[in-house]
């Protein structure tokens, strides 16, 4: 897989000096001609972007971004990173990015306001429990009885209501750090995240916490899939979709996933 990444890098390097050829799909469709502007979160975090430095190409989303850019004919140097919030992404008016990539789940409602690429990752939902609740069995019945929390801006909120249907009120927070604080204060037992984020939080942020189980990616009403976000009607979408299709077919996407996203098969499925 490193070989493929290296290959992509080499092809980038080869094209670094040439302007975007006229025949290319993205020609005339980016904000700045010849440049590909990608927005990520502020901060962007592991395992999506390593060390909050997307320019390094390290981390799952950073790697996918460079690979897609290369596939579309952009040199690594022509990729420009900007930071953006979810609100900026969905507000009306001109955008400061060509694509925005920060684990946005594709939903039909969101799709009415913005455009999404085809998915680049299918995220199973996982249950992160606080240090005091690590011996909770990975069954739905046991999970219902827990005191649940979540990040209010994620699709995990609706998944929680769909799949788990907790007995008590759910407490919601602004970001992962606050979920962490609530777990430390023993105000919540469990929170729902996409599996990579859950693994990251338990390993790095919330001491003593544990990912006790995952739901199959197709649990609930619809699949939780990440897509790159465009301004509604952006013609660049087809170019990105084409690039992703090629990468899916030739296994490049899977290789990147295998390199940056931890092996998740060790996390038991919740029954």
């Amino acid at each position, binding site marked *: 897989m490193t070989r493929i990444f290296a290959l992509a890098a080499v092809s980038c390097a080869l094209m670094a000096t040439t302007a975007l050829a006229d025949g290319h799909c993205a020609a005339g469709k980016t904000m700045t001609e010849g440049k590909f502007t990608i927005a990520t979160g502020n901060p962007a975090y592991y395992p999506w972007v390593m060390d909050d430095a997307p320019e390094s190409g390290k981390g799952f989303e950073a790697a996918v971004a460079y690979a897609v850019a290369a596939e579309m004919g952009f040199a690594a140097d022509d990729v420009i990173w900007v930071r953006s919030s979810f609100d900026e992404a969905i507000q009306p*008016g001109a955008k400061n990015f060509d694509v925005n990539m920060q684990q946005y789940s594709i939903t039909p409602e969101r799709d009415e306001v*913005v455009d999404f690429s085809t998915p680049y990752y299918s995220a199973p939902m996982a249950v992160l429990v606080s240090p005091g609740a690590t011996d909770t069995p990975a069954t739905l019945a046991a999970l219902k009885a827990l005191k649940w929390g979540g990040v209010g801006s994620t*699709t995990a909120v609706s998944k929680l209501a769909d799949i788990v249907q907790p007995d008590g009120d759910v407490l919601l927070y*602004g970001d992962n750090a606050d979920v962490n604080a609530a777990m430390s*204060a023993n105000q919540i037992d469990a929170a729902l995240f996409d599996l990579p984020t859950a693994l990251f939080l338990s390993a790095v942020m919330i001491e003593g916490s544990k990912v006790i189980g995952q739901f199959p990616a197709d649990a609930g009403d619809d699949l939780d899939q990440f897509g790159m976000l465009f301004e509604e009607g952006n013609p660049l979408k087809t170019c990105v979709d084409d690039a992703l299709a090629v990468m899916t077919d030739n296994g490049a996407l899977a290789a990147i996933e295998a390199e940056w996203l931890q092996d998740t098969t060790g996390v038991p499925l919740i029954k």
Partner: protein
Amino acid sequence: MANDEAGGLSRRERYEKQQRRRSSLIAAASTLIVLVALVVLVPMAPGWEKVQKSFFNGAVLAKSFPKLLDAFKINLMIFAWSAPAIAVLGLLIALARDAKSPALFPLRIFGAAFTDVFRGVPVILTVYLIGFGIPGLGLPRPWNSPYIWGSLALILTYSAYVAEIFRAGIDSVHHSQRSAALSLGLSERQVMRDVILPQAVRNVVPSQMNMLIALQKDVSLLSFIGPVEIFRQAGVFKSLLANFTPYVGAAIIFLIVTIPATRYADYLMARQTRERR
């Protein structure tokens, strides 16, 4: 002759009537112009359609409104138990700061430090520190509830402000009232309770009413530590639907409550002034 035609109105009354009609005409006309400008011109702006779709989306509003109303009950609940606590604590702190007896000196210092600290720190910080911090010390459920400690953060912050307003109210009562009351043989306590405070409290009703309205809005800060009140609920909808209309819905619900509250406060004040003429 002029009197007959005006149906018994005096010259002056006729003039004033005419003036009144004139000014209401002007007021109506200018209001109309402003409204027309808003209704006609704003939609003519190039980005209007998109703005309308993401901020004033009827379908989204209809979908989110019932749940927003539901969430607003949490705001009302938190408000309902915080406001009386704030009034009582604010008054106690105001009295502590004005305490003259040397035995109460520590209380005075405490009162001063309290108001300095809680007025100096942004509310959201206090909400975080108390809402996550104190439960983090290891309190068992349900005593570590964010509702309890978040409300306490609001109560502490707001009573610091409310105390200062009460103090200003106490200062606004002329010292001759104190002299007169003392000369009748009332004790310092009685003077405060029966003579100074009633006047002080009445003098600060409008300012305190403003504090209540501000509190009503700041209850939403508790959403940062977990409770899914209207602001958080609107945020959830925003993320889910990629649309800002739920925030507009929340704003409408806030206004439905605060506008009558403001009007009522004004009315109370006006009635009081009238009665006392």
